[in-house]
């Protein structure tokens, strides 16, 4: 029985195909239950079937049933160490669109926890979750923001430190501004005002974030009450001029201009205590952090390789463990049979002494063969050694 992976991802399949085989957690666990000892990992970027002792062709047919078309030319099929290595890379975020993104680790955990697995899949998935954690703690791959909106929040934190209690003004009630606001809120900031040309539109967003809706004309008057301004309107002209910014404000003012054409007067950047980042600046920051992530990915790959070695050793040990267990059981059986013959011929004290001595002899005698078999297992001779032991000690029947 072998470990096998059948799957497709953003590397090999266009979104039109991926979206057809994307399964929610319930559907994925139902498919896994139908296949046997398996885990189905399905996200927007990948659908992968991890199988142990399940016919790969049957599993592929089931996936084709979901897709509604043949997938043989698209899917990748990996076995044993390669399949484990792929899973470790996935859990570490190394196979993701944005290297090091952390969401995938939670998705791997959810897929694993949604089904009952046998010992091999159980071990490989638990190890994969460990790899994901290890990569995130031992490298800096996940520390930097990977999107414009998260970069904007990280930059605000670079000015203010903890954003707890910092007040944010959103100018424009569009989707991009909302994303930036969500990132700021996730770091503890509060959305104080949402300004929009149409106050009604602003009111809906303001209500969701617990802020107050204001008209665009009131922006300058409220600047003294906020620390961060995020602007993302579709206005063709400048929404906030440098001359509208008060000369004295209680803390630094951090302006994020995600709009194209830009909403905020470039002259704001020259004002004392004001910092202004437009979309180009944010994209440059993201590009730079992604370069940093790629550098960290090299270190992460080394960690994955170490874990694959550990997995390989564990899998190899599975070949010899039954033989070792049989050998020890047979030895113990013989010892007990011989001890039984002493019944009534020796005192209790003598019997305890004999039991102790024979047990020590047995352990010492079997120690070296046990160690040698485990060593041989790692070097791929494990099966041959196990067969030899079974033959020499007459353990074939117990195989």
């Amino acid at each position, binding site marked *: 029985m072998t470990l096998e992976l059948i799957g497709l991802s953003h590397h090999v399949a266009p979104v039109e195909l991926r979206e057809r085989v994307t399964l929610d957690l319930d559907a994925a666990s139902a498919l896994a239950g139908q296949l046997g000892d398996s885990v189905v990992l399905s996200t927007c970027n990948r659908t992968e079937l991890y199988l142990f002792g399940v016919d790969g062709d049957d599993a592929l047919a089931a996936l084709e049933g979901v897709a509604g078309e043949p997938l043989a030319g698209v899917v990748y099929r990996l076995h044993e160490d390669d399949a484990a290595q792929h899973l470790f890379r996935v859990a570490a975020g190394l196979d993701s669109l944005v290297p090091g993104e952390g969401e995938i680790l939670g998705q791997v955990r959810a897929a694993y926890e949604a089904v009952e697995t046998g010992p091999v899949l159980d071990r490989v998935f638990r190890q994969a979750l460990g790899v994901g954690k290890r990569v995130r703690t031992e490298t800096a791959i996940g520390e*930097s*923001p990977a999107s414009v909106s998260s*970069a904007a929040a*990280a*930059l605000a*934190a*670079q*000015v*203010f*430190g903890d954003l707890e209690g910092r007040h944010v003004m959103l100018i424009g009630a569009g989707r991009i501004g909302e994303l930036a606001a969500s990132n700021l809120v996730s770091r503890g900031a509060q959305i104080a005002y949402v300004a929009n040309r149409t106050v009604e539109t602003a009111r809906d967003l303001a209500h969701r974030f617990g802020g107050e809706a204001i008209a665009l004309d009131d922006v300058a008057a409220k600047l003294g009450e906020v620390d961060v301004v995020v602007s993302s309107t579709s206005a063709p002209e400048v929404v906030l001029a440098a001359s509208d910014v008060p000369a004295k404000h209680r803390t*630094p003012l951090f302006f994020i201009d995600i709009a194209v054409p830009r909403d905020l007067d470039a002259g704001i*950047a020259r004002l*004392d*205590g004001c*910092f*202004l*980042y437009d979309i180009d*600046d944010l994209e*440059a*920051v993201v*590009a*730079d*952090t992604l*370069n*940093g992530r790629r550098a960290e990915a090299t270190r992460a790959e080394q960690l994955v390789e170490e874990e694959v070695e550990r997995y390989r050793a564990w899998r190899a040990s599975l070949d010899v463990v039954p033989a070792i267990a049989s050998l020890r059981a047979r030895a113990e059986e013989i010892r007990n049979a011989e001890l039984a013959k002493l019944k009534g011929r020796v005192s209790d004290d003598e019997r305890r002494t004999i039991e102790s001595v024979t047990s020590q002899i047995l352990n010492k005698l079997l120690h070296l063969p046990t160690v040698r078999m485990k060593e041989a297992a790692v070097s791929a001779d494990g099966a041959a050694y196990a067969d030899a032991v079974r033959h020499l000690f007459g353990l074939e029947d117990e195989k």
Partner: protein
Amino acid sequence: VVEALFWPALLGYGEAAFAYASPRTSRAATWGVRLGWLAQTALLIAQAANADGFPWSSWAGSLNLFVWFVVGAYLIWGCRPRFRLLGLAVMPLAAGLFVVARIGGGTDTGSSSAYGNVFLVVHVGFVLAAFAGFTLAAALAGLYLWEERRLKRRAADILRLRLPPLATLERLEWRTVIVSLPLLTVGLAAGIVRQHERGGSLDALEAVTLATWVVYAVFLGLRPSGRRAAYLAIGGFALVILARLVLAGSHFT
């Protein structure tokens, strides 16, 4: 014993001065600071045990003690990865001054002073502790100005080569000064009282130290923020340098 302790201390500080240059070796640098500081602490204890009176009353001796205070102050909050560049600013200075103290005989044993121990501990100890705090505050101010400039210029690597946030740097700078100024006040007051009793006149070092006190008093009084605070902290540190390295010789004779 003193000889055997000087070199490990210098080795620790020297290693830290270089190792802080890279994020990958910053942990080793921090251990260099810790072990070096422990070695210097042992050195100071050995000096005190062998001295007939306050052992750091000479110019070089006080420099030795000053280095210990500077590194000690850095250890309070410098041993975190995001403060690596603070270590890169402080540790080369500490290692350099430690070598100067050694050349001047400040790490030797057997020194003695005509002044009473209590007076020297209060005067020299407090003034040096305050100067060490101002050194750290200046390093924090320098980092603030650099970080603020990078943010203003929208440097693309701002999140990769990451410093503590501006607000954190400003807060630590303020806290350092607020702790250091009372120490300087006590140290200065002890010196002024002693001088008044003996009837001496104000020398150049004392005048500059008084000016330093005024600068930091203004700092606390006006509580400037941002760049102004950083410039003031660095201005005060320039006076510390003047007092410690240029004018100190005549005061200790």
